[in-house]
């Protein structure tokens, strides 16, 4: 595999591919393995301990049947000579073996569980932190759903592997090896007879593994369809009932449910063939041993005890193989999950932290809390489409500037470049003369805050949501921020006031109220530059009026860029920019622009009419 193709498949690119060339598969495996190695490295000593425990436990487990065999052979001696010593020794040995086995097994399972859980914990934290560090551009491409499923279902798949299967896998492998060796040492011809049973077993297991992987995927797919339809129906039950959709829905659901039932039936029937098949092989092996071993005993070629030992070993020999095949599907999904996760971790933050962050100059005018912003020959495009061909813009410290224009004109892009959600393709964005790219993440976020219409509330109390603006803010600070914004009134009216839980989807808090909370958050954060992207478009008129006056409070002395399509917000601006196709077509104070016959004055007239 050349460097180039490897580079093309970096990161998450492979997730979208339907067919994966073998060279790429090797690359992906290598990447997963590197991740796994780095996760396991801190646990080297535990791994050795686990290995030791499992070997001892298995040897002890093997000793049991062997001792029983000896014991059985001792019986005639006991009958003849009445010498109980050999038998007593055997029984004591057996007891010791049983105890050693129990102690080792217990610790082995507990240790491997602990190790697995810490690996999973480490992986969870790495992945979460990495997602948080990846730029907004990545999240927009990758979608929330995939971010969640990487961190929930994929990690769960890996966790399941440690939680449910790894101990039995490891012990199955060792049991097979040790029991096999033990049997060969005891009586190799008979051992070979037993091992011949492997051939049909391996064949059966390979078949089952292949079929069950298909069946498993099919059940996952079909149940996912059932779940999606279920959730959609009851999420939109009002629309369903209002539009009498019930019958059609029932038709669809019955069909989807039938599909799942078929898939589930198929996978259960695979089990119905596989498990009896395995038992069959075991039964045949018993018959073979009885026949062949029995003849050997009759010919005085072998002791009865050995035959007994073999019969007991047989039980331990075929079971692990079943475990192995059971584990295989768990292992497969864990491997697939690890591959995807390693892809995400391979994505580099496109907006990287500077190696040596620059410091911002001391404030030019101590009376002002704002800072100057400058766009210098900025060019930006999403993939092929150029949104801003070349933007030059100077915003003085403390100035409030409103950006208006049609959808798709590039208003939001300006906001996002300023908040450094993206970096420009060419040119620079400067804050008091310092390139945003040379500021540390912490410093940048202290200086520039953006509020969007996505006024997302996290579950928790209202106070906690406001506190997000300034961690460890006191209750008084939080309440003062809410008061300044005008949110105090409705918050106090809630049953639990500031301690009201906002519930999963923002509880019973309206869009306007949520927006007020996110304003309070920003107020508490007290940034030098505030960017509002359509932040007031969801508010009703009374709330918007409330926010207008709050905005005057926040904006005093600060630099602000307001993106709006409702012109009411624009009225508080010192300066208005009209953007069309990524170009500034008008620039001036609202009053000046109104006086001209331009775009803004046309928009304004339209707006006045709509207010009626």
């Amino acid at each position, binding site marked *: 595999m050349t460097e180039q193709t490897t580079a093309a498949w970096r990161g998450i690119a492979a997730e979208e591919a339907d067919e994966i060339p073998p060279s790429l598969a090797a690359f992906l495996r290598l990447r997963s393995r590197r991740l796994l190695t780095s996760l396991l490295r801190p646990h080297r000593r535990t791994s050795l301990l686990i290995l030791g425990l499992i070997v001892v436990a298995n040897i002890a487990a093997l000793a049991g049947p062997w001792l029983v065999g000896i*014991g*059985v052979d001792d*019986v005639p001696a006991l*009958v003849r000579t009445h010498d109980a010593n050999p*038998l007593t020794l055997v029984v004591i040995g*057996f007891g010791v073996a*049983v105890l050693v*086995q129990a102690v080792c097994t*217990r610790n082995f*399972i*507990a240790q491997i*569980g602990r190790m697995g*859980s810490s690996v*999973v*914990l480490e992986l969870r*934290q790495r992945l*979460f932190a990495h997602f*948080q560090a990846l730029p907004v551009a990545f999240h927009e491409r990758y979608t929330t759903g995939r971010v*969640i499923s990487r961190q929930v279902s994929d990690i769960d798949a890996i966790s399941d592997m440690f*939680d449910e299967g790894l101990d039995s896998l490891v012990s199955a492998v060792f049991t097979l090896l040790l029991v096999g060796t033990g049997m060969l040492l005891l009586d190799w011809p008979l051992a070979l007879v037993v091992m011949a049973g492997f051939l049909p077993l391996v064949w059966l297991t390979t078949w089952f593994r292949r079929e069950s992987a298909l069946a498993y995927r099919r059940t996952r797919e079909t149940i996912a369809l*059932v779940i*999606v*339809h279920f959730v959609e129906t009851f999420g939109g039950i*009002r*629309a369903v*009932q*209002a*539009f*009498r*959709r*019930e019958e*059609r829905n*029932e038709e669809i659901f019955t069909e989807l*449910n039938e599909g799942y*039932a078929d898939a589930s039936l198929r996978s*259960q*029937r695979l089990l*119905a*063939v596989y498990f009896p098949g395995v*038992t*069959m092989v075991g*039964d045949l092996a018993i018959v073979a041993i009885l*026949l062949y071993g*029995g003849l050997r*005993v*009759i*010919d*005085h070629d072998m002791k009865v005890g050995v035959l007994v030992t073999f019969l007991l070993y047989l039980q331990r020999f075929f079971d692990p193989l079943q475990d192995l095949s059971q584990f295989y599907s768990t292992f497969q999904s864990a491997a697939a999950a690890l591959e995807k996760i390693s892809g995400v971790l391979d994505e580099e933050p496109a907006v990287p932290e500077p190696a040596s962050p620059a410091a911002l100059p001391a404030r030019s005018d101590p009376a002002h809390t704002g800072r100057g912003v400058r766009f210098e020959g900025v060019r930006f495009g999403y993939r092929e489409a150029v949104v801003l061909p070349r933007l030059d813009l100077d915003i003085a410290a403390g100035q409030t500037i409103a950006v208006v224009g049609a959808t798709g004109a590039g208003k939001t892009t300006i906001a996002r470049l300023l908040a450094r*959600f993206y970096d420009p393709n060419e040119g620079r964005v400067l804050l008091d003369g310092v390139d945003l790219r040379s500021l540390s993440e912490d410093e940048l976020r202290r200086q520039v805050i953006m509020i*969007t219409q996505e006024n997302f509330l996290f579950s928790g109390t209202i106070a906690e949501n406001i506190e*997000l603006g300034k961690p460890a803010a006191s209750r008084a600070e939080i309440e003062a921020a809410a008061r300044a914004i005008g949110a105090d009134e409705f918050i106090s009216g809630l049953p639990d006031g500031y301690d009201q839980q906002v519930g999963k989807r923002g509880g019973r808090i*309206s869009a306007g*109220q949520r927006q007020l909370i*996110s304003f309070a*958050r920003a107020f508490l954060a007290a940034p030098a530059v505030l960017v509002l992207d359509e932040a007031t478009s*969801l508010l009703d008129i009374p709330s918007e*009026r409330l926010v207008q006056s709050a905005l005057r409070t926040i904006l005093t002395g600060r630099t602000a860029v307001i993106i709006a399509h409702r012109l009411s917000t624009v009225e508080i601006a010192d300066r208005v920019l009209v953007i069309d196709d990524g170009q500034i077509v008008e620039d001036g104070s609202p009053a000046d622009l109104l006086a001209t016959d331009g775009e803004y004055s046309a928009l304004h007239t339209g707006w006045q*009419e*709509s*207010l009626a």
Partner: protein
Amino acid sequence: MPPQPGRQSRRARNRETAAGQTPFAALLRLREYLRPYYWKLAAMLAAALISVSTEMVIPLLTKAAIDGPIAKAAGGTAAGQPGASLLLPIALAALALGIIHVGLNFYRRWIQASAVTGLEQHMRDDLYAHLQRLDAGFHDSWQSGQLLSRATTDLSTIRRFAGFGIVFLITNIFTFVVVVLLLIRLNLGLGLLTGCVFLPVSLLCLRFERRYRVLSRRAQDQQGDLATYVEEAATGIRVLKALGRRDQAAAEHGSRAGRLYQTQVSKARLRGTFWASLDLVPNAAIGLVLLLGALAVGKGQLTTGGIVAFITLTLLLVWPIEAMGYILATGQEAATAAQRVYEILDTPPAITDPPGSAAGQAPSGTAALPAASTPAAAAAAPAAARRGLVFDHVAFSYPGGAPPVLRDVSLDLRPGETVALVGVTGSGKTTLLQLVPRLAEVTGGAIRLDGTDIRALPLAQLRRRTGCAFEDPTLFSASVRENVSFGAQEATEEAIEQALAAAQAGFVYDLPWGLDTRIGEQGMALSGGQRQRVALARAILTRPEILIFDDPLSALDVHTEARVTEALGEVLANSTALVVAHRPSTVMLADRVALLADGVIAAQGTHRELLAAEPRYRELMSAAEPGEQDGPGPDAADHGLTGARR
């Protein structure tokens, strides 16, 4: 008024009985779903019992082989020949038994698969159909995850128990009794001892299963908790980034993940102890058998083959005993699952067709006038002359003694009239709208459609005559066409095109597959404004008599809003419409405005009249800040209204 309180309390009572039902009783009620499979169940049980019996005979054959031909030969007294000839039939018998054993196992699993899958499928269909009939209020009071887990996890739990659990509950008890009896026959004392050693293992297993399940459930909860946080952090990523709260979020995530880690470690420890003791007990029993057995052989009470058979039989006890714990715990879980499922199936729909009108017989066509035979129609006789939509002293409060949302709403909508409903956030506008298609039920007063109480109309008829568009446009994962023709399968292509045109949703033709493009959660993402327009097209598709719009243009930009407003004017002219409005531009759609405040209609009139006379209305509709008194002049208002009315 209709017996609303009675209905309410009956529902409450029913919920109580469902909740008060013991899990075991719920488990027994599953019989109704098992009935079609009684024969299959019987066959499964028979197959399992015979198969287990053959399993028990094999060790006895081994004994016969060792004590018979092998021992004779090993004893060295006779020549090998007669022994060898005896060995072959025994081996062949073992082979035959093995084949029967395997064949029956296969048969049992095969029919079990179809029976339990059918059971699960049938229950899920019923659950879904029932949930669709339950009112929106019910769905509000349940988290969607709760309903989903009943339809998936709980039903799978029941399926597992119904197939595997029931059969092996019986089979394992049978195995235990028979094996212990066989052991006793081999050697009385040793047999009794073995039985006594094994019995407590069952209890140990049950205890383990219980403790393990508590831990598993805790782990599940913590996983859910963690998943919720992950979900929030992913959805709110822009907020977290904009505020630079990366480290704080990572710390919060870490503490939740850490709690889960602790539980997982405890689980592993418990599992280790359990598996170790599971190995320990049968092994100890074997050691004991070996010791005491050898002594018995010494006294001539037992043969060598007897010891081997004894040990092999003892091993046969291990699985049924271990499994008993698992089966009992599964049974317990299935019982709880059944209880949870029946809790829903037992909830009667609060909003139903009027008694005496089977939904199938509902008169078709929108022209159906009040059926004089229904009692409610008779009660409404004095008002029958008034056509249109009438709210007659309507009251509504949420269950549980909350203060009423609507106290006494009286409002007349003449046929063809459009009324805008205006009020502050939380004043109950949306609630009032939902009362019309009976998504929620009035708790006082009545709503009449052409003189008939809407509760006297078959639900299907009422809802066919009503078209709704809600503030949050719900789209489903289906094609645009399916989303628009949603409830009206019979809609023609032409009607769909007209509806899309009226809602200014022409953009759908530009989607990759036009009207066949899949949209919604699992399909193409549409913007808020686009979704709203598709939902609007759905509402007006069948040109219903009554239109219910909840702020239908909130996500549209000014230009699109103007175009939609114009196109809607024509649609609204032929329908009676109630429109919730937050902005003057939406009010422009209406002939008249009603102000909802404090649970009553506080004022009615044209936009201009209310602006002039009603300070509360001015407060809501004028963008000017309080104090600046130059609101929009009367000229502007005139201009807007005539524009909408044309």
